């Protein structure tokens, strides 16, 4: 696997938008963007946030650190974390 094959931030975002499209029970008032706040806009409770993370792990074959939720607030924050973890894991491999 080469560095170039790693998904970009935009690609991760696209996967996340698709995920929310499929899984959000209540549609948010405005379309999901990278600035969407996980709690305030998307209304994710803790169970749903964990579910989202495990879905991202499955999609990209990665393992997200458990402290993740101590510093992510928006959809973009999560996507950046995913890109970072992918880079780290590929670096180690």
């Amino acid at each position, binding site marked *: 696997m080469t560095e170039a094959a790693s998904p970009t931030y935009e690609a991760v975002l696209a996967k996340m938008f698709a995920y929310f499209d499929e899984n959000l029970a209540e549609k948010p008032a405005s379309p999901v963007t990278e600035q969407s706040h996980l*709690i305030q806009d998307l*209304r994710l409770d*803790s*169970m749903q946030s964990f579910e989202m*993370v495990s879905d991202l792990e499955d999609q990209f074959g990665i393992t997200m650190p*458990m402290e993740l939720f101590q510093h992510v*607030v928006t959809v973009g924050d999560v996507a950046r974390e995913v890109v970072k973890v992918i880079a780290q894991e590929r670096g180690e491999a």
Partner: protein
Amino acid sequence: MQRPETLTQALDGAADGRPEGGYSHLVQEKDPVKFFSYAETARRARRFGAALQAAGVRAGERVGLILPDSSEFVEAIFGAMYAGAIPVPVYPPMNLGQFEGYLANTTHILRQAGCALVVTDGKVRPILGKLMSNVPSVRAVEVYQSFVKQVDERAAPIGVDVRPDDVAFLQFTSGSTSRPKGVTLTHANLIANIRALGAGLHADHETIGLSWLPLYHDMGLIGFVFAPAVLQVRGVQFMSPLLFLKRPALWLRQLSERKAHVSFAPNFAYGLCTTRIKDHELQGVDLSHLRVAGCGAEPIQYDTLRAFADRFAAWGFKRTAFLACYGMAEHSLAVTFVGLEEDLRAEAVDPEKLVRGEAAPSAADDALKVVCCGRAFPEHGLRIVDAEGQPVPDRRVGQIELRGPSVMRGYWGDAERTMQALKDGWLATGDLGYLVDGELYVCGRIKDLIIIHGRNYYPQDLEWQASQVEGVRRGNVVAFGVEDASLGRERVIVAAEVRTPHADDLRDKIAAKILETLALKPDEVVLLAPGSLPKTSSGKLQRHKTSELYRDGQLGKGAVKAGTLDVIKHLATSRWGYIRAAFGSRDAED
């Protein structure tokens, strides 16, 4: 070997008697499992105790522990006991910028306990911010790793004599945010309860336990930190609760890998496994070693457990492994267990008769399933009483009361509520149930507690947060939960009087406020015109009455959604609600 009378003696006894036994810790999925023998745990715990003494902590002083890492937590809680201090476990912050609510909770707990010191880790420390200025008793907030390094690796506390009647720790599990209750348990309480539950589980020197339960909660702490040392089992493995929530399959994979015999979880966890785990995540998993899959800490739904058993039978899960139990922190941990290897049993009872407080078996389709939680332990008393406190015969529903060596000493620094809970040696549980030939069936709660995913939420807290939202009539909010079999948990409803009833964005704002501050998402927010909520003649809001109106579709916009609730659930909630209401008048707290 002499039987231990304190938890410190128990850990020393395990260190001598089971040199190969101990605690294993899985904190991050990809990290190797850390193992510390009982002896090594005792050594590290003593070092922590010595560090507490070096920091000037005296016997009987309270020490707050906010430690997400299970190995640090185990060492710290035993260590505080070695130093004669009283540890106060506090849950660590979980996620997503909910720090405001978290800090408020933590501040109230530390203040109520009068903690002299708080020990946390390097990640949580910055979040705690100005905690010290808000809790005057706290002299310092220390980071575990650097704190223990202040003393030698072999250091141990000196001049401490831990006695059975000393307070072992404070368990903050109940009470509303602003007035938390610290359940005060002695070493003797804990040893008595652990002896009894150990016998009920047939725990022996070969037993292996596995738990993802939070260690700041009684089931994880007493059941999997203290009990293994007292009973000198072969070992226990912890995995982080966050790991379980993220990937429930990991629980089952670890159970298989460790060939674990005993695990416990609240009802919701079994439901989560059934819905979230995919078959391919369980390759090679074998659950045939698991002889006890305990279920407690929240109301047990027969259908949830049956679905789990059916789904995971293919991986060797035995339905008879389910051990339904009833327990509460005020009774150390466990109150009743069903017999080992008994099949899960539920009684179908007539909902109409239950309204009148009688549990009559019924074969009708609308019958309610109530799970049997088994018998009280030897040397422990359990009775059912009516609203006047008089014992009632079998099959009559009433309040569950408990007596015996496991009953707490009281609520820390709260004589008033201790007196409300403990009368003539009997502990009033606030739970409703009935007995049949000595076996307990738990029906519900008298208090308006909302339990979601094993966590207790007080309606008052939801109501207060909703009242903070601009446009809501302050103090005119009612929150309540109704049983919802389709959700596998309670459905959380918030009814708020607003100045402009059609301001739909207020519904979102209220839900968001509660989610941000309490990490709980209301299932429905009902907006009402001023004066819609039922009040007593003295102007007090009536929570029971509100939930009755809601169910009957008489409460503002709730009518439409309530109509979609399925019939059994509807009956169930009205019945429990009715019985609850009949007892509710005794509850002076609200």
